[in-house]
C-alpha cells in the first residue's frame, strides 16, 4: 500500500488514475499504459488501499496531535516478526505495513508499549466496554440530555486495530477516560469523534485462533481472519513478498526508497520560515495549557506531499470510497482546529536525520501541516460544506486559520453563508397529547365481548397512567423504569388475553409512539418550513404548547459524537422500556405485525409526483407541502422501522458476538431459516427500482441499525448490505446530470449509510470487503421514470433532523472558537415543530384498468396538488356517502323495523316472542331494501364531489381540467362508497335493526312505564321552581322529625308543611331539573307523608307546644297531596303503601285511634281514580293477614266492612261520607 502512495508521491501515477484504480477493479481506457502497469502489479492490494490511507492519516495525525496517543499502537511482536518473513502468515501483511513507518518503531519505548498493553486489555474484555450503558438484551443507550454515551469509545475498544482513542489514552489528566467529565477539547478530537477515527488507525494483527472471537478486530483493512476463505491466496501472497515491483520486494528496500524520496522532498520544499503572526488574541483553553498554537502557511513542511495526499484523500472521499463522509469531514475539521503539537521537531528528525523520506517522515510535522492539509481537503469538499447549516458555515467562514490558509475558500464559504436560506427551527415539546378515542375503531362493536371492551378501557387508562408517571419521574435520579412501572405494565399485559385485545392495544401503542416521537430526537414532530406556516398550523388551541415550548428551548441537546450508536432518545425511551418491561411475546408479535403493515403502507404511499417544469412561486407553495408530507412520512417510517428492528432482533441481541466459529456457524444455520419480520430486501429493491431510495433507505438503515451481530452474516441481510454498499458508492456527489438524484437526497443517504457502516454490530470490514460482489447485484434503476430520488424532497432541515450527528461538525468548530468543551451544550439545539395532524389520508388504490390508467395519465401533467385534492375529495365524499346512507336509508329502515316490531308485539302479546327470531323476521323483510344504497350512494357522490373539487382547486384551473378532475373525483368516491356499501350494507342494516329491536324490547320492560311519555314544562316556565334535591331533603327532614327521635321543642310549622307541598307542586310542574329517580323518591316520600298525616304523627309547632294537626288541616293537606298524585306526578305513585302494614300500623300507636282520615283518603283515592276499589280491597284483605293487637284487628275489620259497604258515590255524596266517617270513626274509636 505504501508502494501505491509512494508511486503517487513520485508522480509515477496520477492521482486520477490511482483513484480510478481504487474505485474500479477494471482498467480504464483513460489510464496511461505506464500507470496501468504500475498499478496492475499492485492489484491484489487494491481493496486495502483506502483503509490503509485512512489509517495512515489517523496514525499520522494522532502522532502529531498534542494530546493524541504518543504512538499508534502497533504490535511490537508483529513488527518484529514480519520483516524477515515475506509471504509468511497472513498477519504479515498487516505487520509489514505497519513497519513501513519508522516513526512507529522509533517512538519512545513507553509509547510503544502502552498501546499493546491497552490493546491487550481491550481484547480481553471487549464486551462490557462496548455495551456500556446497555440494558441486557436491549442494550441501547439512553440518549437523553447530557447523557450521551461514548459509544465510539465502546466501538473503539472493540475495534481490534485501534489501540484506544487518543482522548482515552492520553495520560495527562488522570481520568480522561471518563468522557463525561473530560470532554475532549479542541486540539484533541472530541471523545467520540476522536475515538472513531482511531479505530481504524491501527489494524492490529490478530492471531488466528482468536480471530473468530473478534470478527471486528479490523475495521478499515480487512484482517486476515475476516477475509472470506475464498480469497486466501490474495492474502497469502503477501504483497511484500511476491508480485510486487522489484523496488518493493523487501521492506528494507522499500524503506531505503522512502528515505531517498524523503530527502528529495526536503530539498524541494521551500524552507522559508516566516515569523508566526498572531492571528488573534489567545484563545481561552480548557486545560489552561492548551492554548492553540497559531498556524502559519509559511511554516508548512513538505507542502507538495501534503497537497498530493490531500488530493488522493479528497478523491477517495468524492468517490465515496470512504465509509463515512461526515466522519472524514469531522477528522479534517479536527486537523483544522488542532491546537498544538506535542512531538518536537527532534522527534521528527530522529528517524532519518540525513535523508528525510517522503513517507518515512511524519506527514504532519506541525500544526501548520495539519491546517494546510485540512484546508486543502476542505477546498475540494466545498460543495458538501456549502450545504451545511448556516451556523457551521458561519463558524467555518470565521475560522481565522482557514482565512489565513485559503482566503479564496473563506470567501466562498462566506458567500455560501450569506446565500444560505435562513431556516426557522421551531420545536414543539413532545406532544403528550393522548391518542384520541375514535368510536369507529374503539367502541364496543370492535370487541368480541363486553369483558374485552372493558378490559381494554382499563388498559388504555393504565397505559397513560404509566406514561404520565414516566414523564414525571424518568429524569429523577435513581428512578428505574422496571422497578417503577414494570409490574404494573406486566399486570396490564396479562389481561390482554384475546388476540383482538392485543391488536387494539398495539394500535394504541403505535399511534401514541408516532404521536410522541416522530422526530428522531423525540423532541417533537415533523419538519415545517417557515414560521408563518407553523403559526397557522398551530392555531389558537396550541398556544399553550407554544408557551411550554419556550421553556424548553434552552435545554441543551445531547449528542454522541459524529457516529453515535442507535439510541432511543426522549420519549422513545419510554416505548423501548415499555416493550422490555412488558416482555410479552404476544405483544411483540402483534407489534411487529402492526409496525410492518404501517411501514409497508407508508413506504408505498404515493408521494409528490415531479413537476419540474413549473418552478414559480405558486408551485413553491405546493412544494413546501410536498416536502412537509415527505418529511412526515420519512420520519414516521424511520421511527416505525427502528422499533420494528428493535423488537424483531430483540430475542437475538446480546452484548457480544458468538465466541467461536462453531457456535457462530450453528447460530447462522439456525437463523438463516427464520424468515425476516418484514421482507426489507424486497422493499429495498422496489424502492431502488422505483427510484424512491431517498424514502426507503433511511428507514431501512434505522431498521438495520438495531440488528444483532449475526444479522449481517446472514445471506439475506448480507445481500442487503451489498446493495446498500453499492448504492453508497454510486452516490457520487459531484455527478449532477439529468436523472441524477438531488444533491441533498444524496447527502442524506450518504449520511445515514455512513452512520450505519459504523454501527457496532455491522462488521467493520464489510465496507471494504463486499466490493467484489457488487457487480452481480446491480440494481436496475433505469426502468422507472423520475422518481422521488430526483425530486428535491430533502431539505437541510430534514437532513439535520435525520442525522443530528452532522451537527457535531458545528460543535467542533464552535469549541475551537470558545476554546471550551465541545460538549458545553452552548448551541441552540435544532428543533423541529410538531403538528397534531396525522399522516394524511392515504389515497385510495383504485382498480387497475384503462380508466385508471387514463386518470393516472391525466394527473401526470397536472400539479400534484390537483391529484391530492381529487383523491382527498374522493376519499372524504366516499366516506361521507356511507354515513349519509346510514343516516337516511338505514335510519328509515330502522324506523320501519320499529313499527313492524310494535305491530308484532301488539299481535303477539307483550313479550313478542324470541328476540332472535324477531330479528330474523325483520331482517328478512328489510335487508333487500339495502340494494337501494348503491343507487343512492352514486347519486350522493355525483351531487357532492364536483362542488368540493371546485372549491378546492384554484380558480384559473382550465374548464376541461376541472371537469375531468370532478369526474374522476366522482368516480373514485363512488367506487369507494359502493365497494364498501355492497360489501357491508346488509350487515349494517342488521346491526342497526338489532340495536333497535333490543331497544324496543327493553322499552317494553317493567321500567317502561316509568319512562313513559313525559311532559315537559310549559313554554312560559322559567325554571324557577325549587330543585328536586332540595325538596327531597326538606321532606326527609319532616319525615325524620315525625319518626323521631326529636327534641321536645322540635316540630314543623303548618305553614312550612303547606309551603312544602306548594313547592312540590311547582317542582313537579317545572320538569327542567327533575329526573325519574328523584321523582320516584318524591312520590314515595309524599306517600309516607300522607301516612304520617293520617296517623297524626307530625309534630306541629305552635303555641303552646308541638302537637298533632287538627283534622281539618290534615284533610286539607291530604287534598293537596291527592291532587299532586293525580295531576302532577308523572311516575307511578306507590299509593298501595298507604295500606302497607307498616303505615297502617302507625295508627296502632295512636290513642285514641282516628280512622276517619284513612277512610277519607281511601274514598278519595277511588274517587279520583288513583286506585281501584278492588285494588284497595285486596290491600285491606292482605292487611288482615298481618299480626295485630286484638283490638286493632277488630277496628281494622270494621274499617274494611265500612269501606266495602259504601257504594261508590259521586261528588255530592262527599259530605255525607265525611259525616259517616266521622261518626263511624268516633264509634270505632269508642268501641
Amino acid at each position, binding site marked *: 500500500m505504501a508502494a501505491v502512495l509512494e508511486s503517487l508521491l513520485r508522480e509515477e501515477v496520477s492521482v486520477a488514475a490511482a483513484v480510478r484504480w481504487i474505485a474500479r477493479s477494471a482498467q480504464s481506457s483513460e489510464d496511461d499504459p505506464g500507470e496501468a502497469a504500475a498499478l496492475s502489479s499492485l492489484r491484489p492490494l487494491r481493496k486495502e488501499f483506502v483503509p490503509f490511507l485512512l489509517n495512515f492519516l489517523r496514525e499520522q495525525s494522532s502522532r502529531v496531535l498534542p494530546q493524541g496517543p504518543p504512538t499508534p499502537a502497533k504490535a511490537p511482536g508483529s513488527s518484529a516478526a514480519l520483516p524477515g518473513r515475506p509471504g509468511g502468515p497472513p498477519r504479515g501483511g498487516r505487520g509489514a505495513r505497519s513497519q513501513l513507518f519508522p516513526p512507529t518503531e522509533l517512538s519512545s519505548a513507553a509509547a510503544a508499549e502502552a498501546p499493546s498493553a491497552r490493546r491487550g486489555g481491550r481484547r480481553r474484555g471487549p464486551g462490557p466496554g462496548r455495551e456500556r450503558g446497555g440494558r441486557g438484551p436491549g442494550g441501547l443507550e439512553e440518549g437523553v440530555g447530557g447523557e450521551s454515551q461514548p459509544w465510539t469509545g465502546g466501538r473503539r475498544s472493540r475495534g481490534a486495530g485501534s489501540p484506544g482513542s487518543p482522548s482515552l489514552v492520553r495520560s495527562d489528566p488522570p481520568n480522561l477516560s471518563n468522557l463525561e467529565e473530560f470532554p475532549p477539547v479542541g486540539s484533541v478530537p472530541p471523545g467520540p469523534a476522536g475515538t472513531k477515527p482511531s479505530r481504524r488507525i491501527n489494524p492490529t494483527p490478530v492471531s488466528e485462533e482468536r480471530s473468530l472471537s473478534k470478527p471486528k478486530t479490523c475495521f478499515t483493512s480487512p484482517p486476515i481472519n475476516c477475509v472470506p476463505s475464498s480469497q486466501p491466496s490474495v492474502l497469502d501472497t503477501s504483497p511484500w513478498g511476491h508480485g510486487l515491483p522489484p523496488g518493493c520486494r523487501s521492506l528494507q528496500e522499500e524503506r531505503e526508497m522512502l528515505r531517498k524520496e524523503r530527502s528529495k522532498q526536503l530539498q524541494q520544499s521551500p524552507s522559508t520560515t516566516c515569523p508566526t503572526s498572531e492571528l488573534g488574541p489567545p484563545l481561552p483553553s480548557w486545560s489552561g495549557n492548551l492554548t492553540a498554537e497559531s498556524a502559519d502557511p509559511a511554516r508548512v513542511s513538505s507542502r507538495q506531499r501534503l497537497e498530493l495526499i490531500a488530493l488522493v484523500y479528497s478523491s477517495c472521499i468524492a468517490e465515496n470510497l470512504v465509509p463515512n463522509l461526515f466522519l472524514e469531514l469531522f477528522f479534517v475539521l479536527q486537523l483544522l482546529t488542532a491546537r498544538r503539537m506535542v512531538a518536537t521537531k527532534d522527534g521528527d528528525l530522529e528517524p532519518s536525520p540525513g535523508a528525510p523520506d517522503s513517507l518515512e517522515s511524519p506527514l504532519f510535522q506541525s500544526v501548520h501541516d495539519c491546517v494546510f492539509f485540512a484546508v486543502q481537503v476542505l477546498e475540494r469538499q466545498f460543495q458538501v460544506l456549502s450545504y451545511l447549516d448556516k451556523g457551521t458555515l458561519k463558524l467555518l467562514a470565521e475560522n481565522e486559520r482557514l482565512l489565513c490558509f485559503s482566503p479564496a475558500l473563506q470567501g466562498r464559504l462566506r458567500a455560501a453563508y450569506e446565500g444560505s436560506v435562513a431556516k426557522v427551527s421551531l420545536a414543539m415539546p413532545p406532544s*403528550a*397529547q*393522548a391518542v*384520541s*378515542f375514535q*368510536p369507529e375503531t*374503539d*367502541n*364496543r*362493536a370492535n370487541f368480541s365481548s363486553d369483558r374485552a*371492551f*372493558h378490559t*381494554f*378501557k382499563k388498559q*388504555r*387508562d393504565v*397505559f*397513560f*397512567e404509566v406514561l*404520565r408517571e414516566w414523564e414525571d419521574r424518568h429524569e429523577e435520579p435513581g428512578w428505574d423504569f422496571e422497578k417503577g412501572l414494570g409490574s404494573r405494565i406486566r399486570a396490564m399485559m396479562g389481561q390482554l388475553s384475546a388476540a383482538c385485545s392485543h391488536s387494539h392495544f398495539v394500535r394504541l401503542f403505535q399511534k401514541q409512539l408516532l404521536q410522541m416521537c416522530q422526530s428522531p430526537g423525540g423532541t417533537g414532530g415533523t419538519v415545517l418550513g417557515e414560521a408563518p406556516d407553523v403559526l397557522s398550523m398551530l*392555531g*389558537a*388551541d396550541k*398556544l*399553550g404548547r407554544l408557551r*411550554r415550548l419556550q421553556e424548553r428551548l434552552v435545554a441543551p441537546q445531547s449528542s454522541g459524537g459524529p457516529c453515535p450508536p442507535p439510541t432511543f432518545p426522549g420519549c422513545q425511551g419510554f416505548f423501548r422500556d415499555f416493550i422490555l418491561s412488558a416482555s410479552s411475546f404476544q405483544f411483540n408479535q402483534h407489534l411487529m405485525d402492526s409496525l410492518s403493515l404501517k411501514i409497508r403502507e407508508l413506504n408505498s404511499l404515493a408521494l409528490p409526483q415531479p413537476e419540474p417544469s413549473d418552478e414559480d412561486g405558486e408551485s413553491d407553495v405546493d412544494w413546501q407541502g410536498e416536502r412537509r408530507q415527505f418529511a412526515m412520512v420519512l420520519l414516521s417510517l424511520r421511527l416505525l422501522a427502528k422499533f420494528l428492528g428493535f423488537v424483531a432482533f430483540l430475542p437475538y441481541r446480546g452484548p457480544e458476538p458468538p465466541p467461536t466459529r462453531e457456535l457462530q456457524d450453528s447460530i447462522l444455520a439456525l437463523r438463516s431459516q427464520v424468515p425476516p419480520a418484514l421482507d426489507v430486501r424486497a422493499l429495498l429493491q422496489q424502492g431502488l427500482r422505483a427510484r424512491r431510495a431517498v424514502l426507503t433507505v433511511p428507514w431501512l438503515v434505522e431498521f438495520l441499525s438495531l440488528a444483532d451481530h449475526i444479522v449481517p452474516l446472514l445471506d439475506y441481510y448480507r445481500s442487503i448490505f451489498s446493495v446498500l454498499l453499492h448504492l453508497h458508492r454510486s452516490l457520487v456527489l459531484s455527478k449532477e446530470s439529468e436523472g441524477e438524484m438531488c444533491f441533498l437526497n444524496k447527502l442524506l443517504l450518504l449520511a445515514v449509510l455512513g452512520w450505519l457502516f459504523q454501527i457496532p454490530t455491522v462488521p467493520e470490514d464489510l465496507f471494504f470487503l463486499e466490493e467484489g460482489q457488487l457487480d452481480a447485484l446491480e440494481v436496475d434503476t433505469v426502468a422507472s421514470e423520475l422518481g422521488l430520488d430526483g425530486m428535491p424532497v430533502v431539505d437541510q432541515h430534514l437532513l439535520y433532523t435525520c442525522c443530528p450527528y452532522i451537527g457535531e461538525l458545528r460543535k467542533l468548530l464552535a469549541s475551537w472558537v470558545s476554546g471550551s468543551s465541545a460538549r458545553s451544550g452552548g448551541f441552540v439545539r435544532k428543533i423541529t415543530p410538531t403538528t397534531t395532524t396525522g399522516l394524511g389520508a392515504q389515497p385510495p388504490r383504485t382498480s387497475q384498468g384503462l380508466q385508471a390508467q387514463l386518470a393516472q395519465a391525466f394527473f401526470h401533467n397536472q400539479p400534484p396538488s390537483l391529484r391530492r385534492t381529487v383523491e382527498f375529495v374522493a376519499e372524504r365524499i366516499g366516506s361521507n356517502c356511507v354515513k349519509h346512507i346510514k343516516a337516511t336509508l338505514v335510519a328509515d329502515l330502522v324506523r320501519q323495523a320499529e313499527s313492524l316490531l310494535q305491530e308484532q308485539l301488539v299481535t303477539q302479546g307483550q313479550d313478542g316472542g324470541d328476540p332472535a327470531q324477531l330479528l330474523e323476521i325483520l331482517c328478512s323483510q328489510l335487508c333487500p331494501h339495502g340494494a337501494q344504497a348503491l343507487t343512492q350512494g352514486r347519486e350522493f357522490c355525483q351531487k357532492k364531489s364536483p362542488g368540493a373539487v371546485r372549491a378546492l382547486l384554484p380558480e384559473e384551473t382550465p374548464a376541461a381540467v376541472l371537469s375531468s378532475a370532478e369526474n374522476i373525483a366522482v368516480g373514485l368516491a363512488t367506487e369507494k362508497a359502493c365497494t364498501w356499501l355492497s360489501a357491508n350494507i346488509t350487515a349494517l342494516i342488521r346491526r342497526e335493526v338489532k340495536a333497535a329491536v333490543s331497544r324496543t324490547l327493553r322499552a317494553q320492560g317493567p321500567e317502561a312505564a316509568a319512562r313513559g311519555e313525559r311532559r315537559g314544562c310549559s313554554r312560559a316556565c322559567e325554571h324557577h321552581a325549587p*330543585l*328536586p*334535591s332540595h325538596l*327531597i*331533603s326538606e321532606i*326527609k*327532614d319532616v*319525615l*325524620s322529625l315525625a*319518626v*323521631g*327521635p326529636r*327534641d321536645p321543642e322540635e316540630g314543623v310549622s303548618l305553614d312550612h308543611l303547606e309551603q312544602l307541598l306548594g313547592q312540590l307542586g311547582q317542582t313537579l310542574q317545572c320538569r*327542567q*331539573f327533575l*329526573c325519574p*329517580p*328523584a321523582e320516584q*323518591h318524591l312520590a*314515595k*316520600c309524599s306517600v309516607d307523608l300522607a301516612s304520617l298525616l293520617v296517623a297524626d304523627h307530625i309534630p306541629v309547632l305552635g303555641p303552646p307546644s308541638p302537637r298533632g294537626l287538627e283534622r281539618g288541616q290534615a284533610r286539607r293537606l291530604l287534598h293537596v297531596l291527592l291532587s299532586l298524585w293525580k295531576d302532577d306526578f308523572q311516575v307511578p305513585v*306507590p299509593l298501595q*303503601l298507604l295500606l*302497607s*302494614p*307498616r*303505615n297502617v*300500623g302507625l295508627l296502632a*300507636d295512636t290513642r285514641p285511634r282516628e280512622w276517619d282520615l284513612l277512610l277519607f283518603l281511601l274514598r278519595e283515592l277511588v274517587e279520583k281514580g288513583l286506585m281501584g276499589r278492588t285494588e284497595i280491597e285486596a290491600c285491606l284483605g292482605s292487611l288482615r293477614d*298481618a*299480626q295485630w293487637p286484638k283490638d286493632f284487628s277488630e277496628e281494622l275489620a270494621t274499617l274494611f266492612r265500612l269501606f266495602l259497604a259504601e257504594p261508590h258515590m259521586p261528588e255530592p255524596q262527599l259530605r255525607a261520607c265525611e259525616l259517616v266517617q266521622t261518626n263511624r270513626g268516633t264509634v270505632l274509636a269508642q268501641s
Partner: protein
Amino acid sequence: MILTKAQYDEIAQCLVSVPPTRQSLRKLKQRFPSQSQATLLSIFSQEYQKHIKRTHAKHHTSEAIESYYQRYLNGVGRNGAAPVLLELANEVDYAPSLMARIILERFLQEHEETPPSKSVINSMLRDPSQIPDGVLANQVYQCIVNDCCYGPLVDCIKHAIGHEHEVLLRDMLLEKNLSFLDEDQLRAKGYDKTPDFILQVPVAVEGHIIHWIESKASFGDECSHHAYLHDQFWSYWNRFGPGLVIYWYGFIQELDCNRERGILLKACFPTDIVTLCHSVA
C-alpha cells in the same frame, strides 16, 4: 368556596366523630356561618364517608354483627317503639342506614331459608314496608330518614343534585353557544368513558385549552379528587385531551395543580372563555 388546605382542615377537624344527624348539621352551620350550607354538608358527608370507610371492617366482623343484633333484639324486646337501632348506631359510631342494613341482613338470615340477596335487601331498605317484621321495618325506616350521609334517600338526593347541576351546566353551555355532545350521545356512539360534556369545538378557559367539562356537585377534597382523577379525569384526558372540572361546592385550592397537564378546576361556570375565531379569509 375554594378553600385552602388549612381552611379545609379546620372544618374537617370539627367533624371528627360527629353522628350524621340533622342536629349535627345544624350545629355545623352555626360553627361556620360564612361557608355555604351546601359546601358544609358536602364536606361533612365526605368526611363522614371517609370515617366509615376506615371503620367499616370492624363493624362487619361476625362478632360485632352478633353483638349488635343481640342488642337490637334486647332493645326492641323492652320497647319496640324506642329508637333502638338509631341509638345503637350512634353509640357505636356507625351510620344508621348501614347499621340498619347489618341488622336487616342478620334478621333475614335468621328468618329465611336462603341468605338474602343484595337486591332484596336494597329493595327493603328503599321500601321498609316490605320487611316482614313490623318493628324492624319501623326501626329501619327511622334509621334511614335520620341518616344524612347514607341510605337510599341520601343517595337519591345526591343523584338529584348531580343531575340538577348537569342541567344547569347544559343551560350555560347553550347560552354561551358552545356546541357539545352530552353523556347520552357519547354513550350511544360507543365511547367507553364519557365526561358530562364534550365540546365539539374546544375553547380556552383562563388560557387553558379544554375539550370536555365534567360537573361535580360536591366539594373537591383530596380523597375524592384523587379518586376522580384516577377513575375519570385522566381517563377523559387519555381519550379527549385536556378538560375542565367544575366542583360546584368548591374544592381545595391546592388540588388545582394539573392545569398545565390538562385538568383545570373551577368552582363555577367559567367567565373567561375564549372561543376559536373563524378567520375571515
